[in-house]
């Protein structure tokens, strides 16, 4: 029997559950390595060489190099782990998170100042916007 996932019908959302954690183990542990200044320097000097030290899938490596956060989440990454990557890039949560929404940083920041994304139309997949 597979895991029960009552959250599968929440739109635009990937829940970091035990299945995702299993898929993303090496990706997330790579992220943890960037908590040391020395590793951040090595990563920045040659990103491809650094990610090749980790037993990640080629898809995960390419998504990392492209900073494709939606893809990284899909491939088992978790935002709090991925935060080590965008912090290394000097980006805030808001700046990094906005890249997953199809909005510019400015548009996204303004949406948050005006009260955030509305829950209406965002509870279930297929709901009318």
């Amino acid at each position: 029997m597979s895991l029960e996932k009552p959250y599968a019908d929440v739109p635009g959302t990937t829940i970091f559950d035990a299945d995702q954690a299993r898929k993303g183990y090496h990706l997330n542990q790579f992220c943890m390595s960037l908590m040391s200044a020395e590793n951040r320097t090595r990563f920045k000097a040659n990103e491809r060489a650094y990610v090749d030290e980790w037993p990640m899938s080629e898809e995960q490596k390419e998504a990392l190099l492209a900073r494709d956060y939606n893809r990284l989440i899909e491939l088992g990454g978790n935002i709090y782990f991925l935060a080590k990557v965008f912090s290394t890039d000097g980006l805030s949560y808001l700046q990094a998170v906005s890249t997953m929404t199809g909005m510019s940083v400015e548009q996204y920041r303004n949406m948050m100042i005006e009260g955030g994304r509305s829950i209406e139309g965002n509870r279930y997949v297929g709901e009318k916007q």
Partner: protein
Amino acid sequence: MARITAGVTTSHVPAIGATIDHGRTAEPYWAPMFAGYEFSKRWMTEHMPDVVILVYNDHASAFSLDIVPTFAIGCAESFPPADEGWGPRPVPVVQGHPALAAHIAQSVTQQDFDLTFVYKMSVDHGLTVPLSLLFGQASAWPCRVIPLAVNVVLYPPPSGRRCYALGKAIRRAVETFDEDLDVQVWGTGGMSHQLQGPRAGLINSPWDNAFIDRLIDDPDGLAQVPHIEYVREAGSEGIELVMWLIMRGALAEKVTTTHRFYHVAASNTAVGHLILENSK
């Protein structure tokens, strides 16, 4: 004997910490949010506890994917601030209370909560941002802190019901500690926010405010709310709010609201903040 004197809840957004650290709290974007903590900082100086049991979640700082404890209590002498990818926050080292932590760890485990005992741990923004919000910029934190880390990162977190019951177990543990100590329990995280995917930026103010109402007056009912409601209504990261129920469980059945504040938004997140005291 030790006693629980009050409960505090607050969001723990990392950008709040960065704003305090860089002296930018008076900027127009931030000033209205920090204004909501002015009363609390004054109140705290007049009601300074000896120890804060600080319920928070680690954000992949002390705990990687190697080990993910559901509930972990910090039993160490001290806890340094973590390097989360941009260097450690310039905040004081947190001083623990190993004797009270050991007593709570033993007592609540004997009440069927299987805590993980942690004797070496760094603490990230989840723990240090609440301290900065309530104590400001300090050369040393004015009280001792026992970190209580809850897994809300790897789904499923503990249920609201379990968190609420843990709070009650912590109250019983504190009240049987021989030393004469004033203890506060802080629940942190939330409120509505989602940090991933196309739905990122979700805020649900009506749900947040109803959550606060029920936390104050109907915690038994609130504790029954299933995870899926948190995820759907308050966002994938809004599920952190189960931690507020640990604080509430540690207080009496009837509480008085000393302070209540709600603000949208800090970075990606709705900020909620409460000071609750046991009704006389």
